[in-house]
């Protein structure tokens, strides 16, 4: 088997003095979709932010596509092929939908064309001239994802895409993720909703107090339900 596309080993990170990641290990193969499960405050979002390079106070190893990412400044992470969709979606209020969509520069060939994106998200097409924040929560999530799909990023870091959304929207997001997977996109998904995640992810990590405490493929999910119910408190 070839080396994983993204490899993280012994990753520590700090918010100021507060030590939040305590040696995170994870890997993602090309075209794979993994999901990090865990309760609030266990370091899931921090893991994504640290891999992306937003959180700079970090130690350990991050390699992406064979490249050491630890010394890479934030604005070069995207150029290397990492795309980040934050939990709060980060839609710009002073930009129109279309300006939001075309804001991130193309970093590599192979991204989706704007027309293709509007086909995948017809709602966005209808509202291309409205200000970004006039969109519903679901539409904002779609736009936040669409924005990265255009850039040709190889690996999507997706933070809680279903949070606060209606079941029908969650289903639509699941379909989009399915299409991305079919295109060979690599995804690191952070989710609390593991019923949703179980439909799209290939492999799971369970996170607790800043480190990974379990790792298993989707096929083992039924056997792990006890553990998950206990750990996630659902």
């Amino acid at each position: 088997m070839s080396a994983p596309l993204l490899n993280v080993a012994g990753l520590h990170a700090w918010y100021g003095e507060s030590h939040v990641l305590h040696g995170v290990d994870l890997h993602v193969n090309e075209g794979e979709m993994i999901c990090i499960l865990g309760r609030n405050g266990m370091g899931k979002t921090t893991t994504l932010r640290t891999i992306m390079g937003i959180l700079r106070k970090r130690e350990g190893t991050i390699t992406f596509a064979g490249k050491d990412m630890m010394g890479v400044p934030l604005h070069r992470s995207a150029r290397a092929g990492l795309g980040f969709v934050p939990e709060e979606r980060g839609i710009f209020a002073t930009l129109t939908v279309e300006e939001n969509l075309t804001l991130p520069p193309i970093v590599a060939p192979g991204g989706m064309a704007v027309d293709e994106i509007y086909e995948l998200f017809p709602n966005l097409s209808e509202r291309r001239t409205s200000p970004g924040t006039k969109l519903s929560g679901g539409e904002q999530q779609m736009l936040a994802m669409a924005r990265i799909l255009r850039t040709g990023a190889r690996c999507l870091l997706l933070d809680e895409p279903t949070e606060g959304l209606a079941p029908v929207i969650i289903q639509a997001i699941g379909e989009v993720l399915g299409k991305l997977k079919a295109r060979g996109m690599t995804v690191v998904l952070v989710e609390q909703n593991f019923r949703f995640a179980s439909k799209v992810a290939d492999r799971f990590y369970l996170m607790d107090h800043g480190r990974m405490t379990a790792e298993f493929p989707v096929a083992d999910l039924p056997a792990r339900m006890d553990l998950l119910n206990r750990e996630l408190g659902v």
Partner: protein
Amino acid sequence: MMMLFGIPIQALLGQLLVGLINGSFYALLSLGLAVIFGLLRVINFAHGAQYMLGAFVALLMLKFAGIGYWGALILAPIVVGAMGAFVERTMLSRLYKLDHLYGLLFTFGMALTIEGTFRYFFGASGQPYTTPAALSGGVNLGFMFLPIYRGWVVVASMVICLGVWFLIEKTKLGAYLRAATENPVLVQSFGINVPLLLTLTYGLGAGLAGLAGVLAAPIYQVSPLMGSNIIIIVFAVVVVGGMGSILGAIITGYMLGIAEGLTKVFYPEASNIVIFVIMAIVLILRPAGLFGKDA
């Protein structure tokens, strides 16, 4: 003689024009301040010094290099903008992680240093800068005599303001600026070099001040104090317009220039303070400014 509200119409139109010219400078300067504040969150107290620098660079270029008005109109803003970019990159950028007050204090100190240095070498009195031949003389509009250079200043400032507004509101670079104003970290995670964007923005703001300085040189005298005389009014304009609003800065600049001119007609004694009275009223009724978003 035609009268309006008991005032000779010539006097009225004459002061309206003076107001419009002053307003052109207020608009240009408050525009630069708004651009800088919008993205850097720094209140650029050096703006007046950069305006003065623009006028002096034009004067010195003429004296020592024989570069005339039109050359200076292009080169002086570039020189002042480049100096601004250098200062941002080497000094101001180190203060972003501290309270914004430090940026204000730093630029204030820089303004005092620049002005002090120029006073040392050039004294406090002004030096004339000749109006370019193509723009000297005037036209009789029938109701008043318009010096061509003053008409040029009004037109040029409107074109520049419109150009900057277009750059920020309608172009890709402007979209980066607006997005980075809202969420710089996310914009940087998209692969945009935000620190460079900040440097360019400060350079643009400083360059606009320098450009205003060149435009002002033939009208007002070129003096080390010309910046500190105008900058207090410009800060009042920015407060009235609303911090960080591009369009607000432009419109308020012209409006307050005209308000000042009209006050000179109707109640000359108040003309020096009318802008500050308006500022006080706006601060009481609408603290975010006329065009500002309520925080």
